């Protein structure tokens, strides 16, 4: 933003008035109705805009370089039911649910660990059933109710009993696998509110923890079962 006047001077746009923080590129376009070309030029000149977009969409960079043939396949604009809300989103035919959630919908609570259905960090619930979102194509879940760790929050921001139990029992260590562990535990307790420890161990067996905090997680699940 240092050299705004120089950068936009070539396309005859007045420099932002001093003191208006909202100046810069968007401000300039709002004032003169600049062309798309000018807008793109402007965005390129604005480091802030590029870097924030890079965080949200950077992971999809590899997807957009190749264009699939477009005859007869699925429509790209679809509606998803995520955490009780209908979300409209543009989804590539070969896009996984984990990618859509993280990089299109900004729901970065769902983690990508192995991206190969071998660790469980990406676990979400589809109609209440635990599923690896890294190995599910988004287009195959159009008619399903998707729940992520963000959807566990209570109406007043309170934690889900499973989340609270994980804090009380010091469940996580580094925490990266925790959203997946939480979702696996929620799926278990919703279908079986009072599992034995062995049943809980079996239900949680699809989630790896590299810190090896398995017993802490199991303690958490058993505590959540008692408190619910």
């Amino acid at each position, binding site marked *: 933003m240092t050299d705004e006047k120089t950068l936009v001077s070539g396309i005859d746009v007045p420099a932002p008035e001093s003191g208006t923080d909202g100046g810069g590129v968007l401000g300039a376009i709002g004032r003169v109705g600049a062309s798309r070309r000018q807008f793109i030029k402007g965005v390129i000149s604005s480091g802030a805009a590029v870097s924030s977009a890079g965080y949200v969409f950077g992971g999809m960079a590899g997807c957009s370089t190749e264009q699939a043939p477009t005859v007869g*396949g699925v429509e790209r604009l679809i509606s998803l039911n995520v955490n009780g809300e209908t979300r409209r989103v543009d989804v590539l035919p070969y896009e996984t649910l984990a990618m859509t959630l993280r990089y299109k919908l900004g729901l970065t609570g769902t983690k990508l660990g192995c991206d190969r259905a071998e660790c469980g960090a990406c676990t979400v619930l589809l109609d209440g059933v635990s599923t690896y979102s890294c190995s599910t194509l988004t287009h195959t879940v159009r008619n399903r109710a998707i729940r992520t760790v963000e959807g566990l929050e209570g109406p007043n921001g309170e934690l889900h009993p499973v989340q609270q139990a994980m804090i009380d029992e010091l469940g996580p260590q580094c925490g990266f696998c925790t959203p997946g562990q939480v979702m696996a535990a929620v799926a278990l307790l919703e279908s079986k509110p009072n599992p034995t420890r062995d049943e809980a161990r079996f239900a949680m067996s*699809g989630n790896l923890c590299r810190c090896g905090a398995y017993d802490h997680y199991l303690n958490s699940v058993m505590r959540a079962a008692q408190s619910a």
Partner: protein
Amino acid sequence: MSKDMMRAFELYQPDSVENAVELLGRFGPDGWAMAGGNDTLDWFKDRVKYAGSVVDLSGVEALQGIRETADGVEIGAMTTLTEIETSALIQERFSVLADSARRVASPQIRNTGTIGGNVCQDTRCWYYRYGVDCYRAGGNSCYADTPQGQNREHCLWGADRCIAVTPSDTAPALVVLDARMVIVNGDGEREVPAEEFFIGPDIDIERMTVLEPGDLLTAIRIPNDWAGAQFYFEKVADRNTWDFPLVNIASAMFVEGGTVSRIRMAAGAVQCVPRRLSVVEDIVTGSAPDEDTAALAGQAAVRGATPFNYNHFKIPLLENLVKRAIRDS
């Protein structure tokens, strides 16, 4: 090269078997029938296999569910392993299949992984999965069958250039139950016995099943012949979750008046196809299922096994599993 981003493909979502078969017939070798997607997407992300046209079968209602028929049970190919594991009908009549489904991969994979996908999956040989130009991939060498080759997971029987094994846990159970695989293509429907559904490298080195491009496995029919038998299933793997079998075993037997009147037994991960243990069946039939019979059957089961550098352990492992299947079922 990015290994996590899949190459672009077009996705098709038919709502009927007819439409699915029409699409697969139209695309031929460029088409890919996708069931649960767990293995499919791994292949695509690793960029070892590619299909330009993927046919997602999850919207085809007729491929779902477990139905009772006049002479047995029909399981739609898209029925998930969790559904099979928890089905009262399967548990009551063919518990060996429920037990084998429960030992597949992890809970989340069983929630989306299907019985059709489980029997149609490709081998786990890591050289092949890594994308080398081995025989199975259309090349002219085997990287596992070399002095330095890491072949701990590989076969004891049926090597023919390729020494990979069947990775399925449900396949031996289906062979034991004499299941029929229902295959549909543009020419109509045919039924293949489970034992003939799986093929070795001597028949076609680039395929694990009789399915050809354009074919779709739509259902698995299990006759009542073995309903309510004494079943046994055991899988030995390095880890209890995710891992594929080092050896697994499935058996069904009827005991009348203290002797075995009928028995079928099959082992997985010792050959490219589920290995029917006919020699065990012959020895055990007419005898009491006791320790002596079990010992004899175990010895006979491993006769002719040809191990490689790192998989000798599979011989006593299989022998012991055969013994347990007879003694403990």
